[in-house]
């Protein structure tokens, strides 16, 4: 399950890590993966994936800051299109 969560993320800067140093970034990656999965479960899309998407598909357009992105996600989720369950 954890491996799948990581697979969804933008590739971390793993290239530079070698030998003993490799363990720390890997643990941090994993924690980061948990944090990002948690955010998506509660309805905030992944900001890093958004940045990657914009860089790939719309490199010339202005990107939202993390704050703007988060604010917009919250407004969308609880706006018009958010039916709730019992």
């Amino acid at each position, binding site marked *: 399950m954890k491996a799948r969560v990581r697979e969804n993320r933008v590739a971390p800067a793993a290239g530079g890590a070698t030998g003993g140093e490799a363990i720390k970034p890997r643990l941090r990656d994993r924690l980061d993966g948990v944090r990002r999965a*948690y955010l998506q*479960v*509660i309805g905030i899309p992944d*900001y890093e994936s958004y940045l990657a998407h914009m860089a790939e598909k719309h490199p010339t357009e202005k990107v939202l800051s993390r704050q703007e992105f*988060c604010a917009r996600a919250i407004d969308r*989720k609880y706006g018009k299109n958010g*039916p*709730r*369950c019992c």
Partner: protein
Amino acid sequence: MNKLASFVTWLLIAIVGAFSFAALALGRGETVNAVWLVTAALSVYFIAYRFYSKYIAERVLGLDDSRPTPAVRHNDGMDYVPTNKWVLYGHHFAAIAGAGPLVGPVLAAQMGFLPGTLWILAGVVVAGAVQDFIVLFASIRRDGKSLGEMIKIELGPVPGSLALVGVLAIMIIILAVLSLVVVKALTASPWGLFTIAATIPIALLMGVYMRVIRPGRVGEASAIGVVLLLASLYFGRAVAADPSWGPLFTLTGTQLAWALILYGAIAASLPVWLMLAPRDYLSTFLKIGTVVALAIGIYVVAPPLAMPATTRFIDGTGPVFSGALFPFLFITIACGAVSGFHSLISSGTTPKMIERESHARFIGFGGMLAESFVAIMALTAACVLDPGIYFAMNAPAAAIGTTAANAAQVISNWGFTITPDMIEQTAKDIGETTILSRAGGAPTLAVGMAQILAQALGGKAMEAFWYHFAILFEALFILTAVDAGTRVGRFMIQDMLGHVYKPLGDTEFLPANVAGTVLCVGLWGYFLYQGVVDPLGGINTLWQLFGVGNQMLAGIALLLCTSVLVKMKRERYVWVTLVPTAWLLVTTLTAGIQKIFHPDPRIGFLSLANRFSDAAAQGKLLAPAKTIEEMQRVAFNNYLDAVVCGVFVVLVVAMCIYAVKICLQALKQAQPTAHEIPPLMPEGAMA
């Protein structure tokens, strides 16, 4: 997986399941352990998922990963994002699981543990999971369209508008009944009320933290929120015991109802980031954590089921809700077996985030199985309680009186032996002054959970803490639902008013917003208040009204699914949706008509209304009314309930006629006529 290993695994699951069911079925006259119940349920889920959902995915629907999902077609990194299937499963589950699966099974426990268990398991496999799965599939194939839009496209504009009216009516009833559950749980409970009230400043603090202090740091804010929440739970005991603070948090039912109405109006008018979003995060966190903790608790403690398999109340004379097993069991347990509301979630954000069509099986079908498991655990927690305690908590004051001595005597006469001391001791154990007539499911579940969790962790001394933790967990997501539901209700009302007078439909226009909010809160507030002063405890009326509405929405969603299958020229498999549709229509129409016309005033709205209005006309007073005006109000409220119920019945019959007409037309066509997005990605479709 290796074929032999797979065969052996599934054979083992089947054997474990069969063995668990045997333990439940053969253990008559002796107590059965709750572990058998939970294990039997899990085996059913695994087998249904492995075989039935695979059949639906491959044969009936023909899920095709070469067809791009809306998330792939419109990928914009924000609203449409292909999402990891485990993450989306969590997201979908958090959206569908609310208080519903916790309340219904607890109420249905009055008939014993067996009827509820069988309906939850059969219902989820045959109806609930199928509905969630196929609606999700239909929405994916229609570019993430909502249920209302899909009904409009596939069945026509009139059924589309009818469905929207039905959804709004169900919304209002849901908000009223959920608020009533909170009122019943917090009446004269200063500890509980303090912790719930504390969630307001905690959420505000989190909101400001996420927006101003550390923008976008949702994880940090959630962690701070959870710590503060636990602190408020701890200090709540001292506040409740304090001579000056305690009375401040000790409110009556009507005071709480007004407080909730005021809260709903204010909360729904605040910006979403300030209170709704942070509180929703806390509640999601608690919801998933508590469900997991309870499952582990049941396996660690392995409590015996104190409730018998069936009680004498299957004949319809039960104190918790009146009406015979058929049809009322099937509307009392709505969420957990099949819930119409899920069709709104399955056609909401989930189809816009799904990565591949084949994931719909895990997320749609599998997500509903998880919700069903929550319902099974709620039922278990209620049945672990001593039946005497269960009835003391759930029977209305009109039946058992207001003192422990009186209640013990009445309940013992029903055949569930209990002493006044046991009732008082239970109240003391959970840190409350009384447990009598706390209907609505939440407090009963909380006592059951407290007994299980305290045995697993902390012992007797922790029981009061666990009880209030469970109340907090339930009230937290009910209040979130009240807040979010009021907003959605307001949008729907404004949308409708906009057709009458255009400016009222403008969601950016402040007076129109205020009017929409006041109207929405006024509607559910009216039903809530009516429920609080209801002589039969309110839950008896409102929960069944909600059950009828919710199951009818499921019927409508399944009629759509059936029409979609026929229009896809897959009529060979149409029994998959036709069987649950037929069952839902039969049970809900029977229940709806009985609720309106049944001659027994405990069941039929009209006969109760007539009784009160006739007595009022002769100048006689019937308890608990104290004046002729109150008598007339009871009569009016029951006429109103009959009208609401009648609207549901008419809606579903109309929808049925439209669906039959459309299906007959589609059967004559040689080619599929479903309005799906074509399989190949058209040029320029990428966002």
